[in-house]
Structure formats: C-alpha cells, structure tokens
C-alpha cells in the first residue's frame, strides 16, 4: 500500500507543492488575483526549508528579484496574472538572453488591462510566446488539473534548470482555484534536475561556453568562486558584451537551437480517443476538461470525435498536429479567448484539413455544450 499522502488542494497550492518538491528556495513576486495563493503559500512554507520569500514593490521588481535569486544559485519562482505578466515581459527577455533558470507562473484571468480579475481566461497564449521583444526561445506549459499542476510545476523547474531559461507555467483561474485530491509523491519518485555547475578547479571558466555533449554552459552561482559577468546585451561565451553581428548570430542560434533540437523531450501532450477520430477537438488547460466531456457525449451519440490536448503549448506540438491534419476531417480548437492558439494550428495545418474555432473571452468557461454544438455544426 502506498504511503503517499493524499491531499485535497487548490491548483495554486499544488503549484507551490510542486515547486518545493522541485527544490524551489526563492520566491519573489507581487500579489495579484487569481495567482495570490501562490505567493501566500510560498511565504508560509519557504522559511521552513531554509528558503527565502520576498514581496516586492511591483511586478517588475518581482521577476527581477527572482532572477537575482537564481543568479545567486537558488531555484527561483515568481507568479502573477495577466496584467502582471505584461509588466514582467522585459525581464523575461533578460532571463532568456542571459540564460537564467526561472519559473514564471501566470494564472490567466480575463483581459485586456485589469479586465476580469476573478474570471478565467486563456488570453495570454500569444503573450507568452511573443510578449517580450526580440527573438528568443519559449517554453510554456498548460496544466489541466490540480494533480497536473503539481507535476508540471516540477517539470517547469527541471526544464528551466536543464535549458538555463525562463519557463512559463500558464495556468488559468479555473485550474488555479479548483480543488481536487492529489497524491503527493515521495521524495525521489520524480527525477529532479539541477543546473550543471562548473568544476571547482576550472580556471578558465566560460559561463556561456558549452562543453561537448552538453546543451548549455555550466552556470556558477555568484559567490561560489567563479567571478563572471552577466548582461542582457548580446555577449560571447565569456559573458561580456559583443557588438559583432557574427557573434550575435551564433548566440541566437544557440538560444533557439537548445530548444528546437530537443522538442521531442520538451513537448508533452495527451491524445484521447484519436484512433478512429474524424473530428478532433484541440484544447488545453481547463477548457480541455470541457472538451473531454464533450467528446464523451459525442462518442455516446455515435460520432467519431477525439481530443488532442497540448500540455506543452510552446514549443507547439507541431509534428503531432501535422500528423492529425493528414487523417482527420476537422480540427475544432476550443479555448478561452477569441482566437489565439487556433492561429498556430492553422499555420501548422497549412490547409490540409478544416480548422474551426470555438472561443469565449467574457469570463465564462467554454462549456461542453458549447463544444458539442460547434462540433455538430462542422460534422
């Protein structure tokens, strides 16, 4: 019999539990609904594990301080919701170019602007991809349940550490505030990845020099004996700024390819009743719960309908959706916005099959009935 603890908890609470399981030792942020519990529970729990919590003066400071914590060697997280995510964008780009591991949680709410503070939305999908300026890699993960929030938070930390970059956990108000029972795994049950650190006797440490067989440069924490420079400017493998366009090209290629070369490892998804499906509902986050219910009801009515659920939405599961597009008649994208991930689906499908959209951005969830109606229209 498993000795694992079974607990009833919120998605936001599961996020903190997952972060602590992954080794989070530093949290900095600014309170915003509906992400607030993540800050509150982090404040409560971190001191017990020798970790640090600080409530900063604004959202920008929240992420900047979390980056500082990571540079000093601690696994760091910040959490926010829509408007706060907008404010953090510049420093998300900083963490990307400076290759600083960090987890940014965005519990999405209705927007734009202050929008609908307590209502759910999935309106930050494109912001997660394109919010900051310039070209940079993005990993964004959309859990659908409390349990998945736990596991995907652990995975977000692992990916951040492995690829030395900010990783976005893109939940939504429904997932953040719903309560479900989950079993908390014992320590050691899930693999935890810690950033590679330089060898202690390394006299010629290059913070951005990648060793053969490794993906990113080994990262020393400040104060651990390797004095080096970190900047948001384009830099060479020493970390110092370089204006060389040749170097900028090499570095940008490194940033992008560390993700594009490893998409099979990074991208996760769920397929549900797809074997004989002629119509596929593509959905993610809390909306996928409505999609699953809709698919079950449509199946009961004799329709060949299945679901494809990206768990990692960036990088987008392009290969899988291309395969789908070759064998199904319709893809119905269901999401809580007026059309964001559907654009990516259309791009990937390239007209091979019909792509439809069902979306809401008024603070209401997309219901199973909404999806059933849409599917029946296109069948």
């Amino acid at each position, binding site marked *: 019999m498993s000795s694992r603890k079974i607990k009833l908890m919120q998605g936001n609470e599961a996020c903190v539990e997952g972060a602590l399981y992954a080794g989070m*030792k*530093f949290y*900095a942020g600014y309170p915003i609904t509906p992400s607030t519990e993540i800050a509150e529970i982090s404040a409560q729990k971190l*001191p*017990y594990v*020798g970790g*640090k919590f*600080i409530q*900063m*003066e*604004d959202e*920008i*400071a929240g992420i*900047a*301080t*979390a*980056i*500082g*914590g*990571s*540079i*000093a*060697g*601690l696994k*760091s997280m910040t959490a926010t919701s829509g408007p706060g995510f907008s404010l953090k964008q*510049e*420093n998300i780009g*900083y963490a990307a170019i400076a290759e600083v591991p960090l987890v940014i949680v965005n519990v999405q709410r209705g927007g734009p602007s202050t929008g609908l503070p307590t209502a759910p939305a999935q309106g930050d999908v494109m912001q997660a991809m394109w919010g900051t300026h310039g070209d940079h890699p993005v990993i964004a993960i959309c859990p659908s349940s409390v349990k998945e929030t736990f596991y995907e938070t652990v995975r977000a930390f692992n990916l951040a550490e492995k690829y030395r970059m900010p990783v976005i956990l893109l939940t939504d108000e429904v997932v953040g505030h719903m309560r479900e029972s989950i079993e908390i795994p014992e320590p050691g049950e899930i693999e935890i990845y810690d950033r590679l650190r330089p060898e202690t006797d390394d006299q010629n440490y290059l913070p951005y020099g990648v060793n053969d067989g490794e993906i990113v440069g080994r990262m020393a*924490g*400040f*104060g*651990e*004996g390797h*004095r*080096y*420079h*970190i*900047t*948001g*400017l384009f830099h060479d493998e020493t970390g*110092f*700024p370089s204006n060389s366009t040749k170097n900028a090209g090499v570095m940008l290629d490194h940033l992008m390819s560390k993700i594009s070369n490893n998409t099979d490892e990074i991208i996760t998804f769920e397929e549900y009743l797809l074997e004989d499906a002629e119509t596929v509902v593509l959905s993610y986050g809390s909306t996928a719960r409505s999609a699953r219910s809709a698919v079950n009801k449509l199946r009961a009515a004799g329709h060949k309908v299945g679901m494809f659920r990206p768990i990692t939405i960036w990088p987008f599961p392009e290969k899988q959706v291309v395969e789908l597009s070759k064998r199904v008649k319709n893809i119905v994208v269901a999401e809580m916005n007026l059309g964001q991930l559907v654009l990516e689906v259309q791009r990937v499908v390239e007209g091979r099959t019909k792509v439809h959209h069902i979306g809401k951005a008024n603070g209401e969830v997309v219901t199973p009935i909404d999806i059933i109606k849409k599917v029946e229209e296109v069948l």
Partner: protein
Amino acid sequence: MDNNQLVDQYFRKDRLPHIWCPGCGHGVIMHSIVKAIAELGWDKNDVVVVSGIGCSSRAPGYMDFNTLHTTHGRALAFATGVKLAKPHLKVIVISGDGDASAIGGNHLIHASRRNIDITTIVFNNNTYGMTGGQYSPTTPTNEFGTTAPHGNIDAPFDIANLAGAAGATYTARTTAFHMNQMTTIIKNALEHKGFSLVEAISVCPTYYGRKNKKGDAPQMMKWLKDTFIDIKVADKLPEEKRVGKLLMGEFKNVQKPEYTEEYHKIVDRLSGVK
C-alpha cells in the same frame, strides 16, 4: 596600493579601455569604489556589483568581481534577489541619476525602506548621457537638455535625501572632484550595515556641460570644487556664505534592523535552530 596595483588586482584589463567620453567623471567614481574595496580587503569572490542601464551602468564590466548588468532601472531589484539569496555577499549597486530615480525610483525608495544591506552608488551627472543629453530627474529647473530645448520646468530630486527620507540608514553625497573624500565615504557606506546610498556627483561635459554652457571638463571640475561644501563646514558658516553652495558629506548614519538578518531570524525560529 598604487594605481597600477589597483588596476592589476581589481580591474579586467582585457575589457579596458572603457567606453566613457573624454572628461567624463565616471572613471573617478569607479576608481574610488575599487579603491574602497581594496582598502577594506574584501575577497573579490564575495563582491557582487550590479548595475542597470546607462553610461554609469557599464562600470561593472570593467571590475573583477561577480558583475551583473541588468535592465533599465531594475538593478536594485536584481541586487535584492542576490543579497536575500546569499546574505554573506557584499552587494553594490551602480546606477545613474535616471536609472536610480526615474525608472528605478520605486525600487530606490523600497530598498531604502527595507534597509537591506546593499550599497548604492549613484553616478549623478544630471543628464541622460547614453541617449544623448535628455533632461533627467536631477537636471536643475531652467537648465537645458535635448528634450528640454526651451528649459526644464521639472523640479529636481535630491537623491541622497530622498533615500534617507524613505528609510536608508546611511546617505551621503560627494563629487568627482573630491576624490579622497569620495573614497572615504564609499568605504563608510560599504561598511555600513543596512541600506546605504552615496550620491556621487559626476560631470558630463559632452552633453550636459555643452548644452548648459558649463565649459569643458576642467571647468566643470572647478565648478564642483567651488560649489560643494561639506555639511559640517556649512553648519558653521554664516548664512551669506552659504548662498549658491551645495552640500556634500554624510547626511545620515543610523542603525536599524537589517532586512536579511530579520528574515533569517524567522528562518531560524521556524527551523528550530534557535
């Protein structure tokens, strides 16, 4: 330690020469910071120098410590993360007047309020140098900048006293002319436990000086010499002799609970260590 030894031991010689214009006062301030650290004998591995964006903020790249060049205005927030994560580190922030008090003004007052043990050195040249001479929060009223071609109507900040009012426990002002005093003040600030701020008045002959007909670098330095008087001296002077003078020296030096120590008291209490 003579200057050659200082450069050998504390600067990244392969990163020099620096990018600053001829006549810029920033090199003097950077020199004072390094000299203060050398005199304190700190282990270079324990020193972290953080900056934002602007002319002054390129200084950390030349200095052989753990150095972090961040986003505009956010140096203090990054530095707060480093310090809270590893309180044994000696964390120094280098910031310009715009970086510290315009875009970074919120972080400045809150770092002051927290009294976190960080030393901030503001390189104040009264202008936005890197973008070409726009008016800054410390450009005096009626002076000129490329974005104040008809005269600046804003009132300037007094950065040292702003920080003091917000809760910084050590504040001081000094100038690029008064180099020995600057080194002493920076040393005092570095040794102070709590949030310390040194407003180091620099000169920018290239933009600010030229726009405001303040002459070349030596003339601007002479202006610093003739205009700034130590607050202790000023206190003893009759009113008429203080007209037109600006104050430098230590403005505030008090002890209050320090942020990272207070946080660790909570950690110790909860983990049952003490």
